[in-house]
């Protein structure tokens, strides 16, 4: 408690390179009302999260119930999205897959955020040797085209859920490191940083309690946008067989199953999982763009 107070009293505590908007909930709602696209994004993300949480409860069928008598049946009342080659209900699988896809994506984005932010903060805060070493390593990572690098990593690790997480996390790290480094470079020159040093904070404490929290807003925006990209890349890896494998209900895998039946004209097998991906990515993109507007004091509604 006393610690919190000292931070507040520190001169210029509220002044940062990018002033944080301490969003009260009502203010957030107000901002959303002026921004229908963001509201749509938030709505979509909530729907995805709900189906990830409640999917297995809501589903009418077992996502892995093989019924060869009902193989590749088009959309009907009993199966609104149709069934796949094994007679599994596609609507059920699309809804249930949200859990796995969201889990992989959030794990990957979370891991790359932790690593990338730590690397970027060290590079920006300590400079010199740290900066050179860390940023050159990021240069090398960024020298590869993203998806190609993810493919190589996924292949080396062999198929599986962990593979998808590691491969997609690896390609997101440089983005975080670069952003964090530039934020750290500007925020460490601010008056409140100087003041925090002047009142006797240690370097680690300065970094951890004063500088890092003031860099979080852009990091949150980036993470939301990264979620969108990562859904696409995770699905892409599974689509080419390097990620999650066939019986598993996962959006990319389901599209790959549709590809096998393409010449039979079974369009529903790949159409609906693809729509689910597009819908989810759209949600994260709209929300990310909106958060950028809402959290940026220069662009927000007054």
């Amino acid at each position, binding site marked *: 408690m006393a610690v919190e107070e000292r931070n507040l009293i520190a001169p210029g505590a509220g002044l940062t390179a990018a002033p944080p908007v301490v969003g009260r909930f009502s203010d957030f709602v107000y901002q959303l009302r002026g921004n229908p696209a963001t509201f749509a994004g938030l709505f979509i993300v909530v729907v995805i999260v709900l189906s990830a949480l409640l999917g297995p409860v809501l589903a009418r069928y077992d996502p892995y119930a093989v019924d060869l008598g009902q193989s590749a049946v088009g959309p009907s009342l009993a199966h609104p999205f149709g069934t796949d080659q094994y007679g599994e209900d596609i609507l059920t699988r699309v809804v249930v897959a949200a859990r796995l896809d969201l889990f992989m994506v959030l794990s990957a984005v979370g891991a790359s955020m932790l690593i990338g932010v730590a690397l970027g903060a060290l590079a920006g805060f300590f400079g010199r040797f740290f900066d050179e070493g860390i940023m050159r390593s990021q*240069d*090398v990572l960024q*020298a*590869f*085209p*993203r*998806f*190609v*690098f*993810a*493919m*190589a*990593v996924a*292949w*080396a690790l*062999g198929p599986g859920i962990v593979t998808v997480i590691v491969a997609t996390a690896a390609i997101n790290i440089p983005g975080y490191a670069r952003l964090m480094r530039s934020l750290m470079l500007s925020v460490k020159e601010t008056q409140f940083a100087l003041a925090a040093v002047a009142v006797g904070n240690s370097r680690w404490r300065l970094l951890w309690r004063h500088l890092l929290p003031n860099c979080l807003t852009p990091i949150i925006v980036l993470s939301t946008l990264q979620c*969108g*990209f990562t859904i*696409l890349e995770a*699905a*892409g890896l599974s*689509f*080419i*067989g*390097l990620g999650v494998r066939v019986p598993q209900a996962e959006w*990319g895998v389901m*599209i790959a199953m*549709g*590809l096998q039946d*393409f*010449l039979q*004209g079974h*369009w529903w097998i*790949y*159409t609906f*999982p*693809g729509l689910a*991906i*597009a819908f989810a*990515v*759209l949600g994260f*993109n*709209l929300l990310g763009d909106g958060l950028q507007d809402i959290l940026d004091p220069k662009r927000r509604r007054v």
Partner: protein
Amino acid sequence: MGSTRLLLYAARRILLIVPVLLVALFLTFALTRIVPGNPVDRVAGPYISLERRAELKHIAYLDRPFYEQFALYLRDLSQGKMGTSYTTAQDVSKDLRQRFPATFELVTYAMLFAVAVALPLGISAAIKKDSWIDSIARAVSVLGVSMPIFWLGLMLLYVFFYFLGWLPGPVGRTGSAIRFAEPITGFLTIDALLKGDFDLFLKAVQALILPCFTLGFVAMAPIARMTRAVMAEALQSDYVRTARSLGLPFRVVVLRHALKNALIPILTITAAVYGYALGGEVLVEIIFAWPGLGQYSYNALLSSDFPAIQGFVLLVTFVYMVIYLALDIATAALDPRVKY
């Protein structure tokens, strides 16, 4: 920037590529070596004798320590050898050379299409904010980054090939087995015209439409979005207001003043998008059975053909680096503020 200084900058920038390329090379090499189990055992079926396995391992240097393998790999690479592919039984560099033109043609046309649509779209959207064209630009840029590229390709194939029957299906570059014994440029469309084979030209164009549109649409979105954003900012700037108040025609102000200042961020995003296209291209080639590098790498991944995987990653990364190099040099030439 003076031309000699620009040349010096370019030379230094090219030299800077070397260490990054070497580390990237090492990383690629290491990735293909951390695979559990010996690659030969992974590829060879149960009917290959132990002696033959040992022989294969010896040929691929796999019976030596890691650092020795890497040194030998570098030595071979400097002689233009990338190792023998397990599936095509010829040197990977030869495989890549054979498949490169198909990919290059596809990616080039797709990127040209993307830029040709994205620039006018972004500029018009910036000029007429909140008009119908702005709505289209926003819809395109948000949809383009949200759709999985392999799904978009499948949907287009379903509509235009399976349902309407207007365009050829997923059968590669021409829809038939026609191939030139000696390609001139490697671009099938250009080669066909040069040889006066109009029929082949039409076939090649028809086969290109869907894959190009698929790749181009996804590439277009970020470029249109960036163009709209930077042009909108440029149009509100003081220098544009001054130019307009001096009575310059609006066209001239937009194209000569605003666009020139907005060009660098547009070029930067285009280079970044090229990197996405090089990855997305793999997925597009799989969908359309395009006989290029992506298809090759896909088969290599499926059959654990590790010299081929290594070669593919290396080549694509090299191409990507060259694009960024070109971008940096173009930026330096365009922007007098860049320090070098």
